[in-house]
């Protein structure tokens, strides 16, 4: 190890003080009392996503231009990124650490970018063959049903989708207008799901009419109900029945079927949710003047704020604190609506302030068509006696969509009420996994502790402020005249620019900082990972402090 060298004279010595032999024998790791180690956490965006997409990972893969891997990463949790990348209310972005620094990363736009890349590269989708004997029935082909079918087919189960309409898609097809989600995008997304595995489709068959739950239970080993909410709630006012008062969903269904609908000059939409916004904007595009009447104020509106802004920008008028009282009809045609003036009272159980009528204050509006969009209800025909229900929704138990019948699962709006596409996807995915465990007789997985990080865990010295990249749009003048998709999506340049903004919270993205800073050269850079050489790591923890994203943790030695 150490050999003593005797110098006869100074000429034998090196000119500078240095060891003659290598110092590798000196294992300085023995000086360490605290050990750094790579410890990847869960990024907050991922926790914010109902279906738990590995967002940090696919954004990193975008920065590496590995679009195929990015797409496969999303597909693990969501089979339709091109759809969610357009219509999701992106709760991930509300959790993005960057929102506490400048502006959240435009995750939604990046998801769409990758989703659209998937359409151009159909070979990315692996095709599953039937490997299981148990047959699964999926009722309804909205986001929940399609997702459940996808993840079961991927596992090798033969799946049959039953759809009451003649085309698949459910709310995606009939509820969401083309300017937000073009039919051709939906068609491609559905086609890629159907091609991914042993999925059979039976359209124009309605539960309770063409087929019953008992029949399904005889033929299939598990059944998933993703039948959504298909009926508009009635206003319950005088003279409601008759021409001129149209359920919003029915209007959307006709518009989305490609029908031209003339709703007259003056259109009023009742409601404050996303359906109300969709109906209003479609009516506007059909040539009407549109006013949305909502009984509370803009602060209480359940619609996504972006949708409200868009509607206003396009020319939809918003009228707050009014509620329809009576429909006025002359010779069976609608001529006007009497509204009750409201004010905000005490908060209700949802935390929003309750609308209270102001006694005696009413007004009348001239209306050609009144669209109702005050909520949707489920059509539970054929299920009434067989499944436990609550508030006209299917009652489920636990997180995985179990209903009161062992073989029957449910998820999406028919369980949650009017929720979101991504929650329906999450429900479909969880139910698929649960059905698989049930049929394979596997135990429940252990739930991992989602150790996450926030802005206080970031070393923000390494970041510079930047504005979020907005998604390019068609000119505003072209927006209202047609049903063309408004947002055109990111190109490569914008996608990379936006992906580069990701902090990669709690997860290594190979920035090399630890490797550069280690004063003992004790960090080895391997392919796609680093390794700490504990023989030489003195535990100075410079790597931990200089990691911009908290991908390292520390542990006291001997404990």
């Amino acid at each position: 190890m150490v050999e003593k060298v005797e110098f006869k004279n100074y000429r034998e010595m090196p000119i500078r003080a240095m060891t003659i032999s290598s110092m590798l024998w000196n294992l300085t790791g023995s000086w360490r009392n605290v050990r750094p180690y790579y410890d990847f956490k869960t990024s907050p965006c991922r926790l914010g996503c109902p279906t738990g997409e590995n967002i940090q990972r696919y954004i990193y893969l975008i920065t590496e231009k590995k679009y195929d891997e990015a797409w496969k990463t999303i597909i693990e949790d969501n089979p339709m990124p091109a759809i969610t990348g357009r219509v999701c209310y992106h709760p991930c972005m509300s959790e993005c650490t960057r929102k506490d620094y400048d502006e959240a990363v435009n995750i939604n736009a990046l998801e769409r970018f990758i989703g659209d890349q998937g359409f151009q590269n159909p070979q990315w989708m692996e095709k599953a063959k039937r490997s299981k004997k148990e047959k699964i029935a999926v009722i309804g082909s909205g986001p929940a049903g399609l997702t459940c079918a996808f993840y079961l087919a991927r596992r090798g189960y033969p799946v049959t989708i039953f759809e009451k309409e003649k085309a698949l898609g459910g709310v995606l097809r009939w509820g969401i207008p083309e300017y937000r989600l073009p039919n051709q995008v939906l068609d491609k997304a559905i086609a890629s799901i159907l091609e991914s595995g042993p999925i059979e489709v039976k359209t124009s068959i309605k539960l309770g009419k063409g087929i019953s739950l008992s029949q399904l239970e005889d033929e299939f080993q598990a059944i998933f109900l993703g039948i959504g909410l298909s009926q508009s709630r009635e206003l319950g006012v005088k003279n409601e029945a008759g021409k001129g008062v149209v359920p919003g969903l029915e209007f959307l269904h006709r518009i989305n079927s490609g029908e031209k609908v003339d709703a007259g000059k003056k259109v009023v939409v009742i409601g404050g949710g996303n359906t109300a916004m969709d109906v209003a904007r479609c009516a506007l595009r059909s040539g009407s003047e549109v006013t949305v009447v909502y009984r509370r104020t803009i602060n209480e509106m359940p619609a996504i704020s972006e949708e409200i802004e868009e509607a206003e920008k396009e020319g939809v008028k918003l009228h707050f604190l009014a509620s329809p009282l009576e429909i006025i009809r002359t010779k069976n045609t609608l001529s006007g609506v009497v509204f009750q003036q409201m004010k905000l009272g005490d908060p209700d159980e949802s935390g929003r302030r309750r609308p209270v009528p102001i006694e005696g204050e009413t007004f009348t509006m001239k209306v050609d068509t009144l669209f109702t969009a005050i909520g949707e209800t489920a059509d539970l025909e054929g299920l009434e006696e067989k499944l436990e229900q609550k508030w006209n929704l299917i009652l489920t138990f636990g997180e995985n969509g179990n209903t009161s019948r062992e073989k029957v699962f449910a998820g999406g709006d028919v369980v949650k009420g009017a929720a979101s596409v991504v929650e329906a996807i999450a429900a479909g995915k969880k139910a698929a996994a649960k059905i698989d465990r049930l049929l394979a007789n596997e135990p429940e997985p252990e739930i991992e502790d989602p150790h996450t990080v926030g802005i206080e865990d970031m070393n923000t010295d390494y970041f510079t402020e930047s504005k979020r990249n907005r998604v390019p749009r068609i000119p505003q003048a072209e927006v209202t005249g047609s049903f063309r998709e408004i947002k055109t999506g990111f190109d490569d340049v914008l996608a990379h620019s936006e992906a580069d903004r990701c902090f990669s919270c709690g997860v290594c993205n190979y920035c090399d900082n630890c490797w550069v800073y280690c004063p003992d050269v004790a960090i080895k850079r391997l392919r796609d990972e680093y390794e700490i050489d504990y023989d030489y790591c003195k535990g100075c923890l410079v790597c931990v402090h200089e990691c911009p994203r908290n991908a390292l943790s520390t542990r006291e030695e001997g404990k």
Partner: protein
Amino acid sequence: MKKVIMGNHAVSYGVRASEAKVISAYPITPQTHVVELLSEMCANGEIDAKFIKVESEHSAMAACVGAAAAGSRTFTATSSQGLLLMHEMLHWAVGARLPIVLANINRAVGPPWSIWTDQNDSLSQRDVGWLQIYCESNQETQDTIPQAFKVAEELQMPVMIVMDAFFLSHTFEIVDILEAQEVRKFLPPYHPDIKIDINDPHSFGNLASPEHYMELRYMIQEAMEKAVGLIKKVDGEFQKQFGRGYGLIHPYRCADAEIILVTSGTVASTARAVIDEMRDEGVKIGALKVRVFRPFPFEEIFEVLSRAKKVAVIDRNISFGGHGIFFQEIKSALYGRTDVPILGYIAGLGGRDITPGVIRQIAEQAITDKNPHRYINWIGVKT
């Protein structure tokens, strides 16, 4: 190509032509232009070097020490308080035998604050073991940089190039710009035999017992002694290729001079004008510019001065409680070998002008002074 550039930029162009690989510096007046231009050259790719920004001069030299130890050609520049803050690391560069080149712009030391020139900053680093070369023109400054790297790398010793604040640093002169492809023939790329190598780790700067410490110090002195001849040789090679040489010292009309004025830095050029003037009047006077201060060229200086009847040393510095610092060195060069009287003059501290009139006053005072032991004469102090 010729350009009209400031003295500070002459340094930058010298570094560019020398193809330094690492530059680390902290800004300080009057040096800042040097590294400002170099940072731009690094940014625009004119020079393929890593520019390391630091928070102090101590760190700047520490970064240079690391870079040089890793085998890179390394440069820094500073001034006054900055050089003094580097002091500990200056020792390190010598002890570790690292061929770093540093440009120091002579600036008076505070307090009181001053940004103007005098030599106390660099001369107070006399004993750390850096070679010191004092330049008098922008052209000489530029040309000295590649010379310095060549000497430094051969000796494995650091070199300090010194120039006057403002009189040189901020003065524009015509400079024949050196180009890297030409300089490469004179100064080949630096590939040291020993450098930090993560695949073959050694310990550097480690403990040396009394058994070894003196030998290491002996070798530094040996290198310094060798440097005298090497600087001359390298300067000769440079002259051969580029047609310009500067020598260890520069005697001017000294051959038959009865009195010789010893100067350094920009004062040397002013002195030569005064010499011409007084020669025209029939005074047998010459001037000796000392260019290389460490190693001190004792023999060369003795050779020139021993022929004169009187020597007057003009010091833009003062060793408090002693004398002018050049004066002391000149005196030791002549000690015991000749009885020529040496008179010392302190002038121009804190940037006060040393005009031709001041130099003439010193010359005339020296000629008439009958006291051969007046070692310290203050010029221009309001008494």
